């Protein structure tokens, strides 16, 4: 029975000690501990969410960057193609131009040569004519000695010269 009878002294000290622990920890202990644990867990959750969001955004940015890079590469390829085409064009144009110029020069040279030859032929002809005339003069002077036949012949020759000169 002694075990089941609460002792006054112990009850007294229990009330004081438990009351003190309850009051002090209830005021300065538990609210702080539980509050901070909750606060921390909330903050951890929040930070994880934020990190996930940031990661998603970063992944988006990476994709965008890759897309831009691919685009730029394509553009470069196109530009290179264009440039090489232009280069070919320019070379082809230049070649054509050069060929045309060379042809022109050749043509002109041919023309000149022709002209010169014509002139030369003309001169030669003139000289041959003069020469033949002078030869003929000499021949005629020797043969002609004032007779009628001679005179006729002179006339005929003169006509011929006139015709040739006109």
């Amino acid at each position: 029975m002694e075990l089941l009878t609460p002792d006054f002294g112990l009850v007294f000290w229990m009330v004081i000690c438990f009351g003190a622990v309850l009051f002090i920890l209830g005021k300065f202990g538990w609210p702080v501990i539980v509050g901070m644990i909750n606060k921390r867990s909330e903050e951890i959750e929040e930070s994880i969410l934020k990190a996930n969001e940031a990661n998603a955004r970063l992944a988006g940015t990476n994709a965008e960057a890759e897309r831009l890079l691919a685009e730029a590469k394509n553009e470069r390829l196109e530009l290179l193609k264009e440039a090489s085409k232009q280069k070919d064009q320019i070379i082809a144009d230049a070649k054509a131009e050069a060929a045309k110029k060379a042809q022109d020069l050749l043509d002109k040279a041919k023309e000149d040569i022709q002209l010169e030859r014509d002139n030369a032929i003309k001169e030669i002809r003139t000289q041959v004519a003069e020469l033949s005339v002078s030869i003929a003069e000499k021949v005629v002077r020797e043969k002609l000695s004032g007779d009628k036949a001679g005179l006729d012949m002179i006339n005929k020759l003169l006509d011929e010269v006139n015709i040739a000169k006109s």
Partner: protein
Amino acid sequence: MNLLSKFITILMILFAPIVAQANEHQESEGEGKIDVKELVFGHIGDSYSWHIIGDIAIPLPCIVYGQNGLNVFMSSELGHGGHYKEYNGYTIAAEGQPNAGKIVEVSTGERPWDISITKNVLFLLISTGLLLWIFLSISKRYKEDYWRKPTGMQAFLEPIIVMIEKDVIEPCVGKNVEKFSPFLLTVFFFILINNYLGLIPVFGSNLTGNIACTMVLAVFTFLFTNLKAGTKHYWLEMINPEVPTWLKFPVPLMPLIEIIGMFTKPIALCIRLFANMLAGHVMQLVLIGMIFIFAQMSVAAASGVSILSCALVIFMTCLECLVCFIQAYVFTTLSALFIGLAQVEPHHEEH
């Protein structure tokens, strides 16, 4: 098998001196029997001095208020070990007298107002100091940098605090959790620390196995349940429950049951913790006491029994480690449940 027999031999050699000494002690006292009852009750009960081993006891201060006013003196003034002296009109009542083992007034044999620092009170003060030191220091750390990874004591206690707070208090109490969680957490850790302090051999005391301690805890639960948590509907349900009229008129059967229930809940809490902790201590003491009982027969019998007893005591201590936690948990859970039940709101839907 060889290993086992070797092990038993070693144990027997180890225990033989103890057993022999026990035997010798009995012979020298000249008494035929050792009083196991006294041994057990001496350990689970309270005492005015802190008995360590053999004749070594640390005297503790006695504070009494009787016919000749307030008296403060050390318990050594009253003697110890069954041979009590008179001091300042007080003495300790001898075995067989009323108030045996307590301070009484020599003239009348009555108990004075006695708030002595007994062994249990000393442990109560130690555990109070420990609780305050542990939780104030970790709360300081939480306040300083709560986002840090918990270390040391904080890391050890945080999972327990979180378990009690999130898995016990929040679901059981329901609403107004922040109003009741400080009380419930204090109760849990108070019981836990005192249970474990009581387990320490030689040093420990049986505080939570003392009905005064559990009664005060249960009264606190009672007050919190009825005064702080009890809603208008709770009281209405108590006096005028929703049951067929013949159950409450003319004989108020259900209200009576409800009101009795209001008191039996904390009483059950009180008895459960007290009985569990007491039983654990008694079991261990009886098992140890068995060695001394058998020592009176023969050394060989005692050696055999001592091995068995020690094995059982080790097992019991392991079990007690579990029980200490479970009892603290159960007390807290039930207190939280009672508080939650007292916070009832009327059912809005009409059937």
